[in-house]
């Protein structure tokens, strides 16, 4: 029934055209929030309605889609959105980063470096980086227009004065091409360096707030900081307990009620690929055994 009832990738062609116009504008002005007429989607706000609309506008029947949520391919959000596009667009889906042409993501950038043939679509809850400092939308837009970004540093100042260091660990504000300050969506600051000079096109969709913005390929993205408190992407004392990786973003997993815990890669596809290649972490079983 779906084939007749729905247009390819759910949205009608006029809507996709409207979104593509917004996307073109967003790419032309890196970091600038372009308003668009966000549609009702068959999922609640907060579940990635903005990202889904951007993905729908970008998909072609030949694309291969990967959807990740907090780095994982197998969590509720990722599974539902993947299933949504399997049903409404009939495109190939994958869990392998390198096989995907369009990757929709929530809260992470894949560990594997992206290529020029890939589009990374972010789900954005709150696109306005100045929102919690200046609640007036009229005023924040004016601040963007005039590049008055002193207020962003007020937030970082507060962090240092209260915690001794910049305690913002996700949605860490960035300056795009020396012009617009942008909220990179709630990705961990660990991923901020990957935003800059990426070969892939990066698109950001905020459904509830009706904004689209973009980072074109090979664009300079700088994380804001102070001269005497430089940006630090952070690191772990541990390695991944399953694959032994020491350079990835790790999730802490509580294993029992007596303080037992393990740290594992948040990027499940990357971790699995490493284990398949023979890497074993401190608590991991060899790949063949575990998959058997």
């Amino acid at each position, binding site marked *: 029934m779906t084939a007749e009832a729905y247009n390819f990738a759910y949205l009608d062609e006029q809507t996709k055209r409207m979104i593509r116009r917004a996307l073109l504008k967003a790419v032309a002005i890196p970091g600038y929030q372009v308003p668009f007429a966000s549609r009702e989607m068959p999922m609640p706000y907060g579940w990635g309605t903005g990202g889904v609309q951007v993905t729908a506008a970008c998909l072609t029947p030949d694309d291969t889609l990967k959807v990740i949520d907090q780095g994982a391919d197998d969590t509720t959000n990722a599974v539902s959105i993947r299933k949504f596009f399997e049903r409404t667009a009939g495109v190939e889906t994958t869990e392998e980063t390198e096989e995907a042409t369009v990757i929709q993501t929530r809260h992470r950038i894949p560990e594997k470096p992206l290529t020029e043939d890939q589009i990374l679509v972010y789900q954005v809850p709150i696109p306005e980086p100045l929102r*919690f*400092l200046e609640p007036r939308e009229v005023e924040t837009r004016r601040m963007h227009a*005039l590049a*008055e970004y*002193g*207020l962003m*540093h*007020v*937030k970082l*100042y*507060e962090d*240092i*004065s*209260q915690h001794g260091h910049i305690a913002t660990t996700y949605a860490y504000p960035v300056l795009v091409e020396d012009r617009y300050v942008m909220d990179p969506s709630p990705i961990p600051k660990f991923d901020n360096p990957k935003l800059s000079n990426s070969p892939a096109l990066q698109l950001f969709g905020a459904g509830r707030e009706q904004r689209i913005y973009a980072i074109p390929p090979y664009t300079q993205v700088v994380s804001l*900081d*102070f*001269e*005497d*408190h430089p940006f630090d992407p952070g690191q772990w004392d541990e390695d991944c307990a399953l694959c032994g990786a020491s350079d990835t973003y790790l999730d802490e997993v509580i294993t029992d009620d007596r303080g037992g815990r393990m740290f594992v890669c948040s990027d499940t596809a990357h971790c699995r690929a490493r284990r398949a290649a023979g890497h074993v972490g401190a608590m991991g079983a060899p790949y063949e055994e575990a998959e058997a």
Partner: protein
Amino acid sequence: MSATSADFAPSPDGGRAGEGGSATPLLRVEALTKRYGPRIGCADVSFDLWPGEVLGIVGESGSGKTTLLNCVSGHLDPDEGRVLYDTRASGVQDVRLMSEPERRMLMRTDWAFVHQNARDGLRMTVSAGANVGERLMGVGARHYGRIRGQALDWLGKVEIAAERIDDRPAAFSGGMQQRLQIARNLVTGPRLVFMDEPTGGLDVSVQARLLDLIRGLVRELGLSAVIVTHDLAVVRLLADRLMVMKGGHVVETGLTDQVLDDPQHAYTQLLVSSVLQV
């Protein structure tokens, strides 16, 4: 006597230490008019403000003094008239004709605005240090240690204990909030300060302390200031010159002592005689 102040000459002893003998006024307001529909906010107001001079504007509620202040300071757009300011970079400019970025830059560097209600001028959700540092960061300061150093320095100047630097202004008393607002405004070294009822809503002993502080800072830094108030004691202490407003018009101008001791206009006489003698 219906005085217009356009040709009012500044008193020779009104100019104080600071900028020295300047040939042009710092601020010149020409025939400023603001209407709210058929009603007038202020009509045909003109005055000059010289470097280092403090001008008081007094009048009853609804006399147009706050409208005038907002028009001059760029918060309201007047219907007619000019506001000329002697900018550091490019000489005398009509503030209304400046581009918006230029005007906003001027407003957060060379100008300061002290609101009657400190909450209007402070960012209540960030600490006192960040409040003072915001203007510095707004003009490009990116060194945490130096910003904090300057914030501490300014908190000291307005008599706020250094250990309160990381407290939010919501935890401060009304008087402290007002002093914090002053520190936040003066940190970029402005030359012109607008004050709207700076002592309103404070009890008398706190008022006295605040007035003392403002007077000290104005003298020490050689600031020019326009102070709007309905409290004659405030202008007696702070202002060199006085403008009395009624119904949107300036009814009398002159040296503060001269106006207060020998008021000419009937309304000024009423105003001066209404002050309670304790």
